[in-house]
């Protein structure tokens, strides 16, 4: 496997892992709070809908869209996704935004659903199915988008060299490995994600998406990057340096941390949920 295909695999793996983690949290909440039948029905229905959407639009993208136009569209979207994630991660590292505590969110959603009188049932619950369906479809679409765009770019780069294009397969493999990892991690710990350093993941993915978006978007516009694909490393280093400088600039504006009370030290999750 070439270096570019490895880069596609890693980028698809990391980006997809973030999306799967978010979708999996909601499915778990519905499964535990309402019932697993509703949670899995919604997740399976969303997976089916995703398969149809990807089959239709994925093929259309490959066959009909001119490469430079595709690079520009992909570049715009990747830069937007990348900057959005990077901004949140920078604010969290600078202390201006609370770290994303998935377990606190999980407990909070369970508490909210119980407060509405929702509880375990054996029959399929429309609210549970809809909640699970919506989250899996939305996050799954983002994964599909990541796989198709990363894969297409690798295909086109390889195709020019006469090699067998298998970029989409490699990107899909990266996403599939991320799915297995998230499901495995979720199975090991009932309330998921607390041990996955989400902000570090989002920061890395933000830098990578912005880098790839800048590179591909620039190519689509006609910019000839110095040393072609090797310039990706320069862009990664540049965006990383800019992000670290921005964290250092913002950190002095973070509110001072208040020392936790003895009750909060005994039960930190409960204290966060009640805030």
């Amino acid at each position, binding site marked *: 496997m070439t270096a570019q295909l490895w880069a596609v695999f890693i980028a698809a793996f990391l980006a997809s892992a973030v999306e799967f983690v978010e979708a999996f949290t909601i499915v778990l909440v519905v499964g535990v709070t309402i019932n697993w039948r509703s949670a899995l029905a919604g997740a399976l229905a969303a997976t089916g809908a995703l398969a149809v959407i990807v089959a239709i639009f994925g093929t259309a993208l490959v066959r009909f869209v001119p490469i430079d136009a595709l690079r*520009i569209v992909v*570049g*715009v*979207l990747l*830069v*937007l*996704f990348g*900057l*959005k994630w*990077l*901004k949140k991660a*920078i*604010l969290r590292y600078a202390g*201006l935004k609370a770290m994303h505590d998935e377990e606190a969110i999980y407990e909070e959603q369970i508490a909210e659903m119980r407060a509405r009188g929702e509880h375990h049932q054996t029959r399929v619950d429309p609210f549970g199915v809809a909640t699970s369906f919506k989250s899996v479809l*939305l996050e799954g679409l983002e994964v599909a988008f990541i796989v198709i765009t990363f894969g297409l770019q690798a295909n086109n780069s390889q195709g020019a060299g006469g090699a067998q294009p298998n970029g989409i397969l490699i990107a899909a493999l990266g996403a599939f490995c991320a799915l297995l990892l998230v499901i495995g991690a979720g199975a090991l710990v009932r309330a998921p994600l607390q041990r996955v350093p989400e902000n570090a993941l989002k920061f890395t993915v933000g830098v990578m998406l*912005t880098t790839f978006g*800048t590179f591909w*978007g*620039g190519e689509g*516009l*006609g*910019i*000839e*990057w110095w040393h072609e694909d090797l310039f990706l490393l320069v*862009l990664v280093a*540049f965006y990383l340096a*800019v992000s670290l400088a*921005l964290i250092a600039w*913002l950190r*002095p*504006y*973070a*509110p*001072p941390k208040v020392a936790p009370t003895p009750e909060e030290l005994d039960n930190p999750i409960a204290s966060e949920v009640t805030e």
Partner: protein
Amino acid sequence: MNAILRGLKATYNFFAGDAILLIAVALAFLLAFALERASMPNELVAVVFVACIVGGLVTTLARELRGRPRQR
């Protein structure tokens, strides 16, 4: 009408969710496209393109500091 607006808002939130980032990225691509068509040097187009993207990130982060006094 409400459904259309909700759909537009959901689309905006899905793809951008931040007007400054959206404007900066649009400006980066439009400006670079115009400079490229005007046969400007490749290095200049690349620098302007990346500067607009970074400028968007810096501007939206600077907005987060509005009303926040320096703590240390």
